[in-house]
């Protein structure tokens, strides 16, 4: 067993393997100082909660406390490996500043109270708002970090019991475009590919996806392929130099906001050079003529002119993907949070469709998620979708829900697409939405244009409920704050980016009076006395497992069919991929294996949208376009971003994540190993731009535009010229100031017309140097995309506190790894 500093080496030791071979097991384990394996009383099965990879792990419990974690070697997702965030952030569960009692606002201040007082206030206000404004006065803004059972309960309460159309999640910020791109191309949400495709691909293309930081374990799998025989070739599309681009055969660094032009350029090459799989296109798709017509305007020179990429590199990228025997593509926020997000992500699907690269080992698309349970928010209908991937525009689908919930079909809003988060904020701003319940997310730091967001959330007209672990920046604006249990303190299931469902069991009690989110929602429903048409309680379940069983009935016959999964199976077998039915009890590794899609008019989740205007297609239009349910090749022309650099604001701002922090740092900021690796906001510029500003590593910069300003130390990196990068994690809970630190002070209120995902990667800013660093480097990791290109910066290290066990031989302590704990 080796020990390794996993802050210094986030991906751990290499375990090389060849194409088609099985990824070797490497079990990572981190225990509290002074605790040894034999001190652990129980190993409780769970999965990772600080990214979307869904790495299976066991939680170590001793003396009623969480004392560590260990990867599960036999799980299909991670083969034992864990991300540094999972290895260290469990410590945040026991932070002394966890919320232990509900808070209510009295004379302007939040004061502690009991559950009855807090819930009575929420119920009283709900009734008032329903009386005066109807269901449209009520909104729910949830998360990508709760459990499936909680989302489904929220969806039933919001859409079925209250009858509001305003239920969305912060998944809107991370994964809405993944869902929309899948719906546009394949008729329904549902990840086509599998993580196992990494084992078989000979070309892997990563579009706007710095996998090395966002899914470290998945990246380890690629690193192990790269270190083995027959390594895959990598295409990277990213305006920054990242660990992915360093490993790439071809790296395209487009000007932010021009992804669609670049993708059209690649498709132009594939089509004009006749590299298309005509048989696949003819048999399984519609829309090829329109696609060919549209991309005709984007020869490599034109695509290169728009995107600032060498036309030769575009041709080389096209050649690379076309040369693949098995092509795997992944897409993430570099596309999803940028101009023309859906249109660009759809072109990645189109590359696979025109090449016939779907449904075989190694030939797949992964439209990735950002958060651990984002997939469940989508499938359960707690974001802008109806439960079970049902189509709001298909009367029969809504009738199924009405029957399932035993409510009048008119009571379930379906007169328009479910309201997205930014529109809910707009309704609150105008005063027609008066009640907003925020669960497990922190919009006062994570939404764009924070000055505006603070003013909306802090408005006296809006009754704001915040349910969280800590007094977040959003909680500080709330009327009622509810203390919630978190991962390890409650039981439920969640599903990762490749449809793998895990059960996460309760290991310890939550602190103080904190309760699970599910219990809080069910308590609210009882106090509101929600009833179905026969006067029975709605929802009619009482604990996680009964909620899961109810969800299974809702999922039956839909693409995300869970009917073959039980808690008991998840306990004994580990992760299972949906759809899982009695016909397919082992689950389904890859979708669309026979070129069949869930795109038939009566089946599909969405009739699609105009990618430029966002106008939904009418059912009759879709029926005429795609009567037999083939995949849709959807095309779009390039439209420039709504905010472009000017003489006064010459830089394009892009925001993003770092490996060591998650979301607004509510947990990772409270784990010393992680926080010390990236303790403070920084700004990245290219060497040339830094020279033009006369600025050096560590100098204090000020970034300004009409929406706000912030100060950050400079890190000079391999980012493209004219672009400045800020990590978005840093807010105000751990410092006195309440302005000038969060990247979203500067971002623009704008969203993709189709997916409604906010655009965090095209704001214009001015940058000036305000003070010398005097030898202090930027507080940015050196191990990641923020690696310095100048010398003299000490490398990021975790030291002894960050040392983690890596078991090279899974057999050495056999029987120890299977944790059926609880």
């Amino acid at each position, binding site marked *: 067993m080796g020990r390794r500093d996993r802050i210094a080496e986030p991906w751990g030791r290499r375990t090389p393997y060849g194409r088609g071979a099985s990824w070797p097991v490497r079990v990572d384990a981190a225990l509290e100082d002074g605790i040894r394996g034999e001190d652990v009383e129980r190993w409780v099965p769970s999965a990772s909660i600080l990214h979307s990879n869904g790495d299976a792990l066991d939680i170590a419990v001793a003396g009623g406390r969480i004392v560590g974690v260990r990867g599960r070697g036999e799980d299909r997702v991670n083969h034992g490996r864990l991300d540094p965030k999972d290895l260290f952030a469990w410590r945040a569960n026991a932070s002394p500043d966890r919320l232990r009692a509900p808070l209510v606002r009295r004379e302007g201040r939040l004061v502690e109270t009991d559950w009855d007082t807090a819930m009575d206030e929420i119920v009283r206000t709900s009734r008032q708002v329903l009386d005066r404004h109807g269901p449209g006065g009520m909104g729910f803004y949830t998360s990508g970090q709760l459990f499936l059972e909680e989302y489904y309960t929220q969806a039933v309460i919001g859409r079925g019991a209250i009858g509001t159309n305003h239920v969305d999640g912060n998944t809107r910020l991370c994964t809405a475009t993944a869902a929309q791109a899948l719906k546009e191309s394949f008729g329904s949400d549902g990840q086509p590919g599998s993580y196992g495709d990494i084992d078989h691909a000979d070309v892997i293309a990563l579009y706007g996806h710095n996998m090395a930081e966002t899914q470290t374990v998945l990246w380890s799998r690629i690193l192990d392929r790269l270190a083995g025989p027959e390594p895959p070739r990598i295409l990277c599309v990213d305006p920054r130099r990242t660990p992915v681009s360093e490993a790439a055969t071809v790296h395209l660094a487009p000007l932010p906001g021009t992804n669609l032009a670049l993708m059209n350029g690649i498709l132009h090459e594939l089509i004009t050079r006749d590299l298309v799989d005509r048989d696949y296109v003819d048999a399984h798709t519609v829309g090829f003529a329109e696609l060919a017509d549209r991309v005709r305007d984007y020869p490599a020179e034109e695509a290169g002119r728009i995107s600032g990429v060498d036309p030769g590199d575009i041709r080389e990228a096209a050649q690379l993907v076309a040369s693949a025997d098995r092509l795997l593509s992944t897409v993430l926020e570099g596309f999803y949070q940028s101009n023309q997000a859906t249109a660009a992500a759809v072109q990645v699907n189109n590359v696979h469709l025109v090449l016939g690269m779907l449904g075989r080992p190694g030939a797949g698309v992964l439209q990735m998620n950002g958060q651990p349970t984002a997939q469940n928010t989508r499938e359960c209908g707690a974001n802008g979708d109806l439960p079970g991937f049902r189509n709001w525009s298909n009367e029969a689908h809504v009738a199924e829900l009405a029957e399932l919930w035993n409510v009048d079909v008119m009571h379930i809003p379906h007169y328009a697409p479910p309201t997205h988060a930014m529109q809910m904020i*707009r309704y609150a701003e105008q005063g027609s939405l008066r009640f907003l319940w925020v669960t497990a997310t922190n919009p006062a730091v994570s939404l764009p244009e924070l000055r505006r967001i603070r003013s909306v959330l802090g408005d006296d007209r809006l009754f704001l409920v915040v349910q969280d672990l800590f007094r977040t920046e959003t909680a500080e604006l709330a009327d009622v704050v509810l203390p919630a249990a978190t991962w390890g303190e409650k039981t439920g299931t969640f599903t990762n980016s490749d449809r793998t469902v895990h059960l996460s069991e309760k290991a310890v009690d939550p602190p103080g009076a904190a309760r699970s989110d599910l219990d809080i929602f069910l308590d609210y429903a009882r106090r509101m006395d929600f009833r179905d048409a026969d006067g029975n309680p709605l929802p009619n379940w009482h604990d996680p497992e009964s909620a899961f069983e109810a969800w299974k009935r809702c999922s039956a016959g839909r693409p995300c069919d869970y009917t073959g999964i039980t808690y008991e199976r998840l306990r004994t077998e580990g992760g299972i991929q949906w759809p899982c039915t009695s016909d397919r009890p082992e689950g389904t590794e890859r979708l669309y294996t026979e070129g069949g899609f869930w795109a038939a008019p009566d089946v599909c989740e969405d009739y699609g949208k105009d990618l430029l205007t966002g106008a939904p297609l009418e059912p009759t239009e879709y029926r005429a376009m795609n009567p037999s349910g083939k995949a849709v090749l959807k095309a779009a022309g390039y439209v420039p971003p709504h905010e472009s650099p000017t003489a006064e604001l010459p830089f394009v701002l892009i925001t993003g994540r770092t490996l060591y922090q998650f979301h607004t740092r509510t947990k990772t900021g409270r784990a010393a190993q992680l926080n010390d690796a990236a303790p403070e906001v920084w700004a990245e510029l290219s060497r040339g731009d830094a020279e033009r500003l006369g600025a050096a590593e560590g100098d204090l910069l000020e970034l300004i535009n009409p929406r706000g300003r912030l100060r950050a130390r400079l890190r000079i990196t391999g980012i493209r010229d004219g672009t400045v990068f800020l990590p978005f994690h840093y807010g105000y809970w751990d410092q006195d100031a309440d302005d000038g630190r969060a990247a979203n002070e500067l971002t623009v209120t704008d969203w993709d017309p189709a997916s409604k995902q906010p655009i965090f990667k095209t704001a214009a800013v001015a940058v000036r140097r305000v003070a010398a660093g005097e030898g202090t480097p930027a507080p940015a990791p050196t191990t990641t995309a923020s690696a310095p290109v100048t010398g003299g910066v000490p490398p990021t290290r975790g030291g002894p506190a960050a040392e983690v066990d890596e078991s090279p031989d899974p057999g050495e302590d056999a029987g120890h790894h299977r944790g059926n704990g609880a």
Partner: protein
Amino acid sequence: MKLALALRELHRSERNLAVCLLHVAQRHRADAGVSHLAGDLARWSRQHVAELVTVGGRYGLRMRAEPTYGSQQVARFWRAAGDRFGNRPEMGLLLLADLRKVHRKAAGVSVVWELLAQGAQAAEDGELLDLARRCHPQSLRQMRWANARLKELSPQILVS
């Protein structure tokens, strides 16, 4: 030939639609879901106008490509008004009225493109027909956008 009449009418109504969209974009700047798209869609109409000016030359028409009289000043006025009053509840009803206007104007434009396409076929003017085939779908998309926004926003504005 009366085709020139249709061209002139189309030029007039496309210019008019462009200005209308531009004003909507400014007036509803606080409503990002409307403002940005209205700006994008105004660009389509401006392109149509420019192309009509070129084609019109062949039919002896001398038409202006620029936006109409004073439209920039009016846009500035609406921008200031939008910034000042954009968050008032009454703006919701004004938005519905504006979207209805966009829908009506885009529908009008669309019908004239239809007429022009028919005329171009009868006149065997391939270039004009090609222009109509490229531009007409965009008019329809402008119309569908306004309709979609109306469908989405009206329940909240009318009931809550």
